[in-house]
């Protein structure tokens, strides 16, 4: 790794304090990261667009503020890789879909404004599964992203571009969105920290919706502390999102150094069932490490989780079928001409959406349609209640739950492309937290037999982010080997 590369590997907290103190310019930090991007992006395709010019302007502005002695915020000069489903004023936001090609939003997402207020520098918009529908970042109109640890493998998805960007040192921080595991699963595959906050902890305003009652924006970072810092910057009440919780951002860093002594950790059987032996072994080692650190680890069974995947694959497509109706060729984005309005809608949507998006729109339309609502959508909503209640029972006896993030390490590009159900199964362990609206985090914990990263997942009750990060930090300390730098 070059000198620039080493510079790129520093934590966000380090960079921000150096920039704020005037010890290092935001411009130099940016250049170091752009150099890494230049060398490896052609192999990885983590970005839909790299915002070199905009980022340079922004970095220069931060440097001027530092020189003028003005406050610059907790992320001063820190490059951030932004998933391309987060709206950026005047900058293309495509959701990796042909249907939004060329669309420049006339507004910034709330998280984008908060990043700017914190002094962050958006370095690029990252590749994703189209409209966040997928678990591999192969469903993109601009082609797949590759895993930095092994370019024949997927980075996971749908936030695979952000995960890969952080893993490859393109940026110390990334933002993704997690509807059924779309932050945690790629974090696990790419060997970085990825976290889904409590539903409502981070404003969804400006996040292009996939499934509104499940979507949540969250951080990617190379360290637990950096992820916590980023959550503190983007979180907190937003009057523009009716589902945003009252109050400030979770104090995610408040318990980082506390350790896990005396904590009750539930090792959840359903979050290991079907996991590959090497993945399961790492999870057990993680449980052991927490026990050594003073936690009381007990096995717990939550059978209701087994219905989570089915419920999710009815609820999420149902909401998606409605959320994606607006891409009709009338107001923005792609239009394919046809003699009448309905035919124009059909031609546009047929040409603009990829196969996975069409599959989910049809699945969701079916689940909501007359005669099937009760059997599918209504039933899935009831299962959601069961999952919420099961979590509540588990948390009566345990402070956090522990399990695998994904059943396997990163799989080969193309290996699941023709089998949607097999692809959906890779979300098995991440979905329960989305259904309940609870926070969960994936922390790298060693590697599998193939040498690829394994992620261990910690789950906590709603708004228990400080606790969740404390446990994650303890796991980070106990990681069995040096972080593998891809």
């Amino acid at each position: 790794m070059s000198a620039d590369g080493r510079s790129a590997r520093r934590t966000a907290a380090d960079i921000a304090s150096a920039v704020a103190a005037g010890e290092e310019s935001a411009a130099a930090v940016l250049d170091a990261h752009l150099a890494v991007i230049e060398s490896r992006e052609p192999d990885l395709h983590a970005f839909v667009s790299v915002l070199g010019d905009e980022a340079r302007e922004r970095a220069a502005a931060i440097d001027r503020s530092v020189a003028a002695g003005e406050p610059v915020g907790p992320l001063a000069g820190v490059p951030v890789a932004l998933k391309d489903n987060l709206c950026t004023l005047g900058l293309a936001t495509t959701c990796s879909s042909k249907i939004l090609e060329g669309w420049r939003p006339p507004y910034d997402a709330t998280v984008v404004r908060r990043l700017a207020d914190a002094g962050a520098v958006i370095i690029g918009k990252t590749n994703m599964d189209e409209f966040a529908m997928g678990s591999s970042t192969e469903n993109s109109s601009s082609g797949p992203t590759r895993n930095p640890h092994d370019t024949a493998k997927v980075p996971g998805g749908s936030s695979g571009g952000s995960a890969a960007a952080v893993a490859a040192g393109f940026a110390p921080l990334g933002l993704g969105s997690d509807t059924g595991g779309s932050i945690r699963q790629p974090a696990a595959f790419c060997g970085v920290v990825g976290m889904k906050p409590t539903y409502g902890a981070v404003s969804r305003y400006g996040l292009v919706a996939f499934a509104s009652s499940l979507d949540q924006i969250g951080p990617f970072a190379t360290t637990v502390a950096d992820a916590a810092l980023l959550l503190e910057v983007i979180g907190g009440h937003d009057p523009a999102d009716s589902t945003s919780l009252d109050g400030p951002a979770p104090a995610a860093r408040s318990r980082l150094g506390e350790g896990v002594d005396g904590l009750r950790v539930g090792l959840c059987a359903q979050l290991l069932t079907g996991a590959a032996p090497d993945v399961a072994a790492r999870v057990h080692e993680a449980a052991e490490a927490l026990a050594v650190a003073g936690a009381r680890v007990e096995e717990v069974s939550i059978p209701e989780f087994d219905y989570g995947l089915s419920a999710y694959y009815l609820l999420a497509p149902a909401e998606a079928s409605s959320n994606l109706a607006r891409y009709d060729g009338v107001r923005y984005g792609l239009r394919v001409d046809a003699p009448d309005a309905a035919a124009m809608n059909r031609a546009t949507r047929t040409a603009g959406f990829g196969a996975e998006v069409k599959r989910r729109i049809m699945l969701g339309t079916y689940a909501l349609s007359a005669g099937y609502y009760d059997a599918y959508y209504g039933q899935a909503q009831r299962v959601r209640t069961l999952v919420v209640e099961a979590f509540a029972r588990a948390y009566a006896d345990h402070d956090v739950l522990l399990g695998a993030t994904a059943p396997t390490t990163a799989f080969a590009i193309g290996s699941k492309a023709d089998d949607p159900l097999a692809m959906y199964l890779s979300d098995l362990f991440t979905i329960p937290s989305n259904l309940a609206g609870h926070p969960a985090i994936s922390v790298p914990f060693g590697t599998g037999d193939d040498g690829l990263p394994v992620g261990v997942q910690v789950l906590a009750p709603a708004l228990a982010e400080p606790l969740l990060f404390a446990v994650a930090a303890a796991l980070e300390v106990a990681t069995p080997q040096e972080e593998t730098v891809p």
Partner: protein
Amino acid sequence: MSTTLGDDWEMVIGLEVHCELLTATKLFCGCRNAFGDEPNTNVCPVCLGLPGSLPVLNTGAVERAMAIGTALGCEIRPSSFHRKNYFYPDQPKDYQISQYDEPINTGGRLELPDGSVVGITRAHLEEDTGKTLHVGEGGRIHAADHSLVDYNRAGVPLVEIVSEPEIRTAAQARAYVAELRAVLVATGASDGRMEEGSMRVDANVSVRPAGNEVMGTRCEIKNLNSLRSLTRAIEYEADRQVALLDAGGTIDQETRHWDEEAGRTSTMRSKEEANDYRYFPEPDLVPLAPGAEWIERVAAGIGPLPAERRLALAALFDGGPTPAQRDQILAVVDLGLDPLLRSATDAGVPATLALARTANEVATDTDAALRLERTSFATLLGLEANGTLSATQTKAVLAVLLERGGGDPGGIAAELGFESLSSGSLAATVADIVAAHPDEWARFVEGDKKMTGFFVGAVMKATGGNANGKAVTAELARLAAP
């Protein structure tokens, strides 16, 4: 009964009235809620349905919906929003956010001026669509070459008021809509302007043999935007259904369109083609659960309702208003002109005169009437009542007042050349004529009724017809009094 339906058949009518709320902003965003602005100027990411945008509910719209519920005697309940999914170019998100199985208002009633009562099933909140202009072939949808959409109206708050199917004649349907409009205006929730589309009516019409309890198959007639269309469409549709049934046919449940020019309804969509709206709970909004204190606060802010205001006007007439005056009172209250009328009676103008001028002259231009300064109106009618101005002169001055929105009636009378009678000159004229005819005057004083006509005629002649007959009589009586 319809003029043509006869005694063998009975209509069953239920009405759905969409009413735009008089808020400053739209239902889910801060864009202006205004009629007639330049196209696509009151739009933002939310009401354009841009990717990533989210709705936030408007307190003002909720309170107006609660006011409507209160005025209609509904129960105001915890409620939630659903998405109604359908593709149409005027619908920015290709779904409408509307209250579905948990509406804010349920179970009210509306008493009509004739004493009949129509049950209200529900009155719920939802968002309006944009406006579509059809280009080519006179703006007709089927012949149009293409269409143009303005989203200024998209997201404007609506309350949809659904009646029970308890209306039995087109006239009753008309009375229901007129009374509902007056109630909506009285609550401050709506301006009630059907001609601007701020109130739109859908009518569900079926017929059945008179006395039969079972409902016939109904047809829904969409988008009736005047009381006249409503009456005509219902009568046409009922007659059509009866003719079909009389001929041994059956009614298809369908949605029909009213063609105002042709004076007939036609099929829009059959039940088999009915949309599958795939309603589901709107995940971007949380439920609404107004507490008792909030509901009471809104209720306390509602002014007197039309029925109460009609009673108050009727009470101004000794022995009660005549049937003609009752109709005038109905019209005056419907148009919201009763405060104007009351300003005159409060100033001592006789109720009969105040009602006549309000119902006959003022009501012809409602917009101007609602702008008219009440004190100017009251002062003017005072001048007519005391004989300073004749009826003809009063009407002329009133026309100017309406045009200007107010002003000094005496000054306007002078401008119009009515000055000779504007400052006590009537009394002088009468006195001169009395002095010139001592014999006639003596007979008048003795009680000869014929002499009243003599003196009034003489004064009219002297004033070129500008005197007020009643005022002359009053002046004669004053002079003759011991």
